[in-house]
């Protein structure tokens, strides 16, 4: 595995059928994707959703044309699969309240302190506009520094920090409102 090779270059190699290139990409992003998934879906389903995401990546890799960064394209698939998950979740639930109670129960162990606060924060995260969700997840789920976030988003460090503050404030407002 060569860390210097860009994602986009690896995609080109993977599109040409090189398994190793694809596996390098997959290894780069497995934990990041998993962290994003487990921050937004019940723990018991995080593995299945992560799997569905990477299956979708394999199936649609040929359609990646390099117009955006690979990570942006990948996180679009992550968001779409999580949205699909919730569509199916609500469709199959006849008793929505019971399911939501289960959802809250499986996100965190019942004996952990403040789990209801966690559920509120996670549900609040779902309600945020996409750019707010994105910057919070880049910092907390992907563990990128603010300088890296600014680079990824193509904005200044000050703008990234400002967006982060507004995102956290918006989340705080949603949690307090609920």
């Amino acid at each position, binding site marked *: 595995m060569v860390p210097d090779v860009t994602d986009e270059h690896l995609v080109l190699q993977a599109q040409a059928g090189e398994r190793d290139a694809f596996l390098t990409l997959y290894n780069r992003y*497995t934990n990041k994707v*998993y962290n994003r998934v487990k921050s937004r879906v019940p723990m018991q389903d995080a*593995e299945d959703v992560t799997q569905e995401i990477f299956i979708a990546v*394999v199936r649609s890799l040929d359609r990646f044309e390099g117009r955006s960064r690979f990570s942006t394209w990948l996180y679009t698939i992550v968001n779409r699969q999580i949205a699909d998950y919730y569509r199916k979740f609500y469709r199959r639930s006849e008793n929505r309240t019971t399911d939501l109670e289960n959802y809250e129960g499986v996100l965190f162990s019942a004996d952990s302190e403040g789990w209801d606060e966690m559920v509120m924060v996670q549900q609040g995260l779902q309600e945020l506009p996409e750019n707010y969700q994105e910057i919070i997840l880049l910092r907390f789920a992907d563990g990128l520094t603010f300088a890296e976030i600014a680079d990824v988003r193509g904005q200044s460090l000050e703008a990234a920090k400002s967006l*982060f503050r507004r995102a956290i404030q918006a989340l705080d407002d949603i*949690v*307090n409102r609920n």
Partner: protein
Amino acid sequence: MDDQTRLDDNMANYADLILAGRDPAPSEELESQARIMQVLNEAIKPGQSMDAGMRSRLNHRINEEWDSAQQRRKSRFQILSFNNFNLMAVAASLAIVVAVVAIVIGMGDSSGSSMGATAQGDGDSGDLAIFGAIAVVIIVSGFLYFLWNRRR
């Protein structure tokens, strides 16, 4: 430094500290948001990776999917390279032959029967030749575009 920038920096620094595993006391103005960030950190735990069993199952499934995707890709390529490609080659060749025949007939008509030919008849064969030539250009261009697209 204005007030907003100072707040932006304070909040970013606070996030950095809790993500580094420290438990700093938030300033009064950050108290509510600091709690949100602590909860986020607790819920997401960025350093945590999936366990070995889950990782192994995922690797296995993704490798399987890769194999079947490559298989599908190969068969799609075969269909493209055999059926469509050959079909287009035959169609283009036929079109060229038809166009050449049409042009030759058109030329024969206009040179061989100049005295007896009506203006209408000359016009028909001339039209035919023009249509033939246009058809050849369109089909050959389409064929070349198809080839060029495939090789990209």
